[in-house]
């Protein structure tokens, strides 16, 4: 029932084919260019052609952000645009150095290339995440809503409190421990992503061993309730871990955008400075072959 279509092979790998063809054409053209023009750089006609091509590509790539939010248009499909966005994005990593004749320095020109490279690389990470992480998500069951999660957890905690009523001190202490068990220490988005804090969250098996260790310390009359407490606690830990895992994947699916988007705008600024300054110092005469 599910078609195995994704952003990379959309429409019979249309954009992949375009990507390969363009890449081959670019390389061939560059070989000729480098052969005839002993000193390839951005300031001669052919070099500028690469530059204009790169600029065009960047503008189209940035248009994706707008296209994604233009909901009424039938100008291509969003899937097609994303597929285009990915392949042409990678292509810029080739076009732009060709424009510069593979010459880099410590200046605003190289800075804009570096920023662009960061954008493209973060985008590649994003592509990897988009293709692989939704599948991982399905391992953790149905997506939990925050409200649902809250309600469920509160239900467990309430039941635990009810169990600990009129019990011995040790039981109450164990109950309080159970309630705070498995709550991850670090709850910031990046900590969740890198599993920091949740590493010291108790795993279910750890907790089970501890339960068994403490069982003999519990009064005979409270043993049944203690076991009930253990079951509740295990269910709570399971739910917490599931929620955490889902959060982690959701964060990963989003986090790369926090690099991709800001850096792309920074790149746009650097690129503008690059273009303006080059034209300011060299004039338009360089566009004449």
């Amino acid at each position, binding site marked *: 029932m599910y078609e195995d279509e994704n952003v990379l092979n959309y429409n019979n790998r249309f954009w992949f084919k375009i990507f390969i063809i363009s890449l081959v054409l670019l390389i061939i053209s560059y070989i000729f260019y480098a052969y005839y023009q002993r000193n390839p750089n951005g300031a001669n006609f052919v070099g500028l052609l690469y530059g204009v091509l790169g600029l065009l590509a960047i503008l189209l790539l940035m248009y994706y952000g707008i296209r994604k939010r233009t909901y009424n248009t039938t100008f291509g499909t969003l899937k097609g645009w994303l597929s285009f966005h990915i392949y042409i994005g990678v292509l810029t990593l080739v076009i732009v150095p060709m424009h510069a004749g593979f010459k880099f320095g410590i200046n605003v020109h190289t800075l804009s290339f570096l920023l662009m490279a960061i954008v493209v690389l973060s985008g590649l990470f994003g592509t990897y995440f988009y293709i692989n992480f939704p599948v991982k998500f399905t391992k953790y069951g149905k997506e939990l*809503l925050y409200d649902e999660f809250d309600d469920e957890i509160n239900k467990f905690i309430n039941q635990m409190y009810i169990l600990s009523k009129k019990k011995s001190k040790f039981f109450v202490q164990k109950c309080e421990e159970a309630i705070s068990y498995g709550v991850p220490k670090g709850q910031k988005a990046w900590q969740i992503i890198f599993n920091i804090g949740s590493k010291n969250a108790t795993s279910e098996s750890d907790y089970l061993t501890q339960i068994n260790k403490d069982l003999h310390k519990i009064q005979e009359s409270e043993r049944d309730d203690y076991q009930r407490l253990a079951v509740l606690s295990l269910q709570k830990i399971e739910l917490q871990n599931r929620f955490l895992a889902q959060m982690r994947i959701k964060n990963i699916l989003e986090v790369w955008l926090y690099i991709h988007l800001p850096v792309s705008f920074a790149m746009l600024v650097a690129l503008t400075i690059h273009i303006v300054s080059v034209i300011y110092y060299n004039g338009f005469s360089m566009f004449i072959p």
Partner: protein
Amino acid sequence: MSNGAEGIYDAVIIGAGPAGLSAAARAGENKLNYVLLEKGVIANTLDYYYQYGKYVMSQPISIPLRSDLQFQAGSREEVLRSWNDYASKHTIKIQTREPANEIIKKNGLFEVKTPSNSYNTRNVIVAIGKLGNPRKPGVEGEDLDHVSDRLVNPGSYSNQDLLVVGGGDSAVEVALALSENNRVSMSYRKSEFFRMNSELLKQINEKSENKQINVYFNSNVKSFEKGFTTLIFPDRELRLKTDYVFIKIGAEVPRPFLERCGINFSSEEKNALPVKNDKYETNVPGIYVVGAVGGKDLIKSALNEGYEVIEYLIGNEVEPVDEPLLKEKLLPIPGASVNEKLAYISSKVPLVAKIQTQLLREFLTQSDIIQVKKDDIIFEEGDYSTTFFSIVEGVVQAIFEKSPDKEVFLRSGEFFGEMSLLADRRRSATIKAINDSVLIETPRRTMLKLINSEPPIKRIVDEAFSLNTLQASLSINIFSYEFKEIAPKLEILEFKKGDIICEEGDVADSLFVIRRGSVKISKKSKDGSEFVINYLPAGNYFGESALLKVDNIRIATVSAATTTEIVRILVSDFIKILQRHPELENRIKAEMESRKIETTSVLQIQREDDKDTGIIADFIKHGVVESTDVLIIDETKCIRCDNCVSACEATHGGQTRLDRRPGPSFSKIHIPIACRHCEGAPCLQDCPPGDAIIRDFDGVVKIDPDTCIGCGNCAKFCPYGVIFMVGETKKPTLLKGFFDNAINIITPKKSKPAPKVKKGIAVKCDLCYNISGGPACVRSCPTSAAFRVKPEYFKKVEFR
């Protein structure tokens, strides 16, 4: 006070409700010397008994308004304002707070006495209504302050012990409205609720099961006292703590008053009406009754009657209000006058032959008379239309795609379209005109109303429905004489979702045909768990294999997948059918073979991780198989970006009709909260304006924002919560992150602004019918995770 030439009025109108006001307005226009007497204020019932902001309806829509007063459906306040404005602008001669106590006849004139005055008049128009005269239990303490016959504002009671006396619709409405924040009891003298609006019944049963409302059946009030009420049962008494009491035991025509005036009633029964002629005149010449007191309790009819009675009074002939409409509609029908045409229809169409003229007129004003030419297609198999057709003249043929050689002809007097009407499914056959024909096309709602109010019509349509279902599912021609033989023994059984129809291992004694709804067929595996092997929608039969086997043991369990109606055929009758149609047996046997093969293949692909349920079971469980266009999200591709929701929001005036995250997930797919445009859609069943929520010809269920009154019925009926009641238009949610906002700002506003959503109405998915390119949710998914499927899809679900 000027009492006219000799101090004698032309007319005294009693009661300033819709009928009285309308009569007064007409009398004023005709320069009659009249006075309008009212015991309270203008439109007292509306003012006093209706809750604040209550929506006043203007049924029946098809009948035009004939009154000098304006009347449009709207809130209680709007209606009151418009009438009060009219009364002051046109100086209606009204005496408010002056009840008429007595009408005395003397010297060919009438004297109407009020506490402060007496009026001599030639005619009296009684328009005192009915609701203004609520019944009282007639027990001790009923006049105490905490005992009331109306509920003004449910919000003003909280955490109180309340008692509602009565068991009709309005009593239950009051109890339900109060039950949210109070402890509510009901006292009802009968042993169960009778003749109640089905939705109300459902709600009250639910609340009484959960003990949110305590219903005391078989109880009468013995007495009221401050803080307590004593109820009396056949075998005991109960003293109940009650802070407030609401008495809702209906209203009645104030019969003693009318009888004192000498007016006769049609019978001794409680609901009997005063006797009157066509011109609203009672047996006492000069006394007229109009409005609810005469039996017409719709506001619009009352307004019309008020107008007409004055016209009759001054000697004008008034043709019935629907006459011009009918004249135009009935043009294709032979006959000189409307009455002749009606007689002609009655003689041609047995279905409506026996109903009263008034009902027939109403029926026809709401229907269309259509003329079709030879070879015209009236509808096609698979269409979504739901109207009902009666043939006045001509012959049509039903053509079935499944069995093209089957020939069914329908002639004058017969009808078709009952399958779609009663099962709310797509058309099951194509209907083609064989020669030039004249048909009556009746909207679904009108037809259902007629069927439900006229048992003989219900029986005829029901039988045809069963017969046609039988013929269609078994693909045979059953002749009417054959059917007559088995018809009396056919049983129509109704099952709710999940009810078991027959169980694996039972001894079979009958064959079942699904006429409405759908069923799932399941078997038990060796380890005792249940798995679903098939799903059958309406128009299919089941239970035949056990009948054809030697031991007659059911081999599978069948249960209703939704509210389902089954026609049950006893084995003896089934054998009769088989004897007459020997080809049927072979076909059934062949079909059984193929079903067996299907079953085994389904068994083999039961998924390992989820043994007891397959994907079919999940589709059935979550009602997905009932849908005609459902949004599905492939969870292995969904990146949780919610762009689908943003797209829905952006294309629907900032109000999304899609909520991605809730909703069932199974087999790595997710069914978000968005309309599935179900077959047999429950949301369509009770829309007060009638057509605010409809299924259009493409099968899309949509809500007209202009007609919707925001009552919330459709949302209540929807089992999947996909109809959203909106307050004010929501502002688009802030997009996460500054740069997203930056992009948003520079986004060119290419798209035309979406229509703003009106306050307080229901909204739902409309499949983006007004934008090219299909639903925005699917188009805005960057990863092909969101897709929509049609029912054909479920027939070829692959298992993975």
